[in-house]
């Protein structure tokens, strides 16, 4: 047979003053009161005999704590506070470390930026040096085997339906030109409205030979 939680008290206690078991506890705290305190189940009779001191009694809420518990609580609070402060300090230190680490990183990145910027400038210089006329001429003559043409030929476009006049007698070569860069054919367009001849020997961009290698404007056709 399973045990029941609540057991009936073995017998009700008789209420008699002066009993050696001592007065019963009651809400009013008066030893003369004849209230029946709830008995803890399973409490054997006769144990009341040991309670001899008079206790100050009051009603407490379920949540109120014993002094010991209060002390424990205070201690817990203190520890908590200390931990909080420590955590705060620790956070400050961590923040500082992170800040410094990032500052290092920032400085490193800034240094990198400066280095790359300097590298960019040096590359710009290389480009500018490669664009210099003497460098272009040197490359054209030595590596690409180009030569400066000795004569300049002007071409004059003539409209359709007209017979082009016979070429004029060969004039002596134009002043010996040792001028390397950019010698190329130009066009004379003074008496026709068409702009440049659409034909012929290579004429790339007319000016700025420094940015294009000089073109061999010899008469071998394209």
């Amino acid at each position, binding site marked *: 047979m399973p045990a029941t939680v609540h057991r009936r008290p073995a017998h009700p206690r008789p209420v008699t003053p002066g009993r050696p078991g001592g007065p019963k506890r009651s809400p009013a705290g008066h030893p003369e009161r004849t209230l029946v305190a709830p008995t803890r189940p399973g409490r054997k009779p006769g144990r009341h005999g040991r309670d001899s001191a008079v206790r100050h009694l009051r009603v407490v809420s379920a949540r109120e704590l014993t002094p010991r518990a209060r002390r424990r609580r205070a201690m817990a609070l203190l520890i908590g506070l200390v931990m909080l402060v420590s955590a705060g300090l620790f956070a400050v230190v961590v923040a500082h470390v992170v*800040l*410094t680490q990032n*500052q*290092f990183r*920032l*400085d490193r990145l800034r240094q990198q930026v*400066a280095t790359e910027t*300097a590298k960019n*400038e*040096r590359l710009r*210089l290389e480009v*500018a*040096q490669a*664009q*210099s*006329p*003497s*460098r272009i001429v040197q490359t054209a003559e030595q590596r690409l085997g180009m030569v400066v043409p000795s*004569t*300049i*030929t*002007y*071409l*004059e476009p*003539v409209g*359709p*339906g*007209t*017979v*082009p*006049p016979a*070429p*004029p007698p*060969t*004039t002596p070569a*134009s*002043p010996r*030109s*040792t*001028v*390397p*860069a*950019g010698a190329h054919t*130009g066009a*004379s*367009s*003074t*008496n026709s409205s068409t702009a440049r*001849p*659409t*034909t*012929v*020997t290579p004429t790339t961009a*007319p*000016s*700025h*030979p*420094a940015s294009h290698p000089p073109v061999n404007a010899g*008469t071998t*056709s394209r």
Partner: protein
Amino acid sequence: MALVIGICFIGVASRLVYVQVIASARYAGVGRSELLHQVELPATRGSIIDRQGDTLAMSVPQTTIVADPHQITDPQGDAARLSPILGVDETTLVHELTQDTHFVYLARQASDDVASRVKALSLRGISYLSEPKRFLTDPQLALPVLGTVDIDGRGISGLEYEYNKALAGKPGDVVLERDPQGNDIPGGVRSSQPAISGSNLVLTLDRPIQYATEQALSSEIVKANAKGGTAIVMDSRTGDILAVANLVAGKNGAPPGPAPSNTAVTNVYEPGSVMKGVTVSGALEDHVVTPEERFTVPGQISLYGSVFHDAEPHATESMSTGDILAQSSNVGAIGIARDLGKDRLFHYLLDFGFGQPSGLGFPGESPGILSNPAQWSGTAIAAVSIGQDEAVTALQVLDAYNVVANGGLWITPRLVSATVGANGSRHAVPTLPSRRVVSATTARELTAMLEQVVQSPSGTGTAAAIPGYTVAGKTGTAQKPLPNGRGYEPGAYEATFVGFVPAEQPALTAVVVLDQPTPIFGGAVAAPVFAQIAQYGLRELDIPPAGPQSGPPVTSVQTGAGSTPIPVRTTD
């Protein structure tokens, strides 16, 4: 016992009060001075670019290697390892590394290669700074004009010197915290002011024309075995100098190299016959002579005991004003000058820009030497009228003939067209106003005569002709005076050609001067160089030839609709 403690306590307390309260500023200052460090942030020097935007000179950051001798533990060993990389001998390095200082330069503005090799050694006490170094994109092009900078990046000659303030910008500074080893503490920047980059200089120079001019002049110097030469090319209408070449012959067969200065404006010489253009212009303007007027010109003339004769001996002949110029007759010119009178001649010399600075403002520019007519001797008028007894710069000669090219207006020459600030703002260099020197009629008349110099078979400047274009100009062959100024150096001549093209609407004016060439004549050595550089310049500026009647090697090409290939006949 308590008394002793009390006394000590009072001692400590008073010291505390002293340090914290009374002398706090001093101690804080000491601390700051140890902690804080002020570093100058160098400003990037502005670049120099040509009229098309191509860079001629620019600054690039390089690594400067410095050492803190107080941290060098093994100067001998370190010097031994650094010496081959830096190219400095060991004893010098040891001396530097043992100085009693915190800072010595080991190598300034070293290349990347050198810097990385030094860094690879990981030596203690070596640190690196960034210092800009000036580079020319072409090591010799227009070097005397651009000028040079010193090790600290300050301009010391040429345009780098003249425009140093604009180019230099303003350095910044940063105050930061440093640890005892000298390393920067990250995040310890107290204050910083950024550097302001220098402005870029935009020149009127045209790099391709500059290169072509230098090449043509260089080969003529070699060919004529001259000591050196100068050539200037100018845009006639604006006075913008497109090219200025200053070369001296190389030693021991080396090609000619840049002259030590911009001799086109810093050196003076006696111009010779080119001055006759000014003499005749003055005479025409004052209506002392007319273009068609004929003169009886003997082969030589005697004046106050000095004899002046023409370059080519001839019997007395009849010459027009134009002939006198075309054949460069000294006697004829002297006659015209005497008709003009010395005061009027001097007036025109000044008006044409001689004897004074040109307004270009180039450092070291010479105003030339022209003495006051009140001090002229009897023969001075003769000498001056044919270009002796005075000293001029090549630029002055060019400017004078540019007056004729511009219909009688003086145009101030210009080398810098604008400065462009670091923020991109462009400030154009103002052009000075022009002034009238002679009337347009006089200019036209003189131009026609100058054309004859080049076109007429008996003209002295036929070698300056350019097929397809009409060239107007004047030759000059003048003896060089002795260094002591008394008399002339035998056999030493300066040959000049100055002119403009196309004559009907001048676009380019140029002058070429050769120092002691063989042959000596301007028409033989300077005129062909003029033709080459002017021809190049005309193509570069897209100025077409005048047309078939001028006789260029023009071939007509039939263009037409349809797919037939277009025949091309070219002359060679």
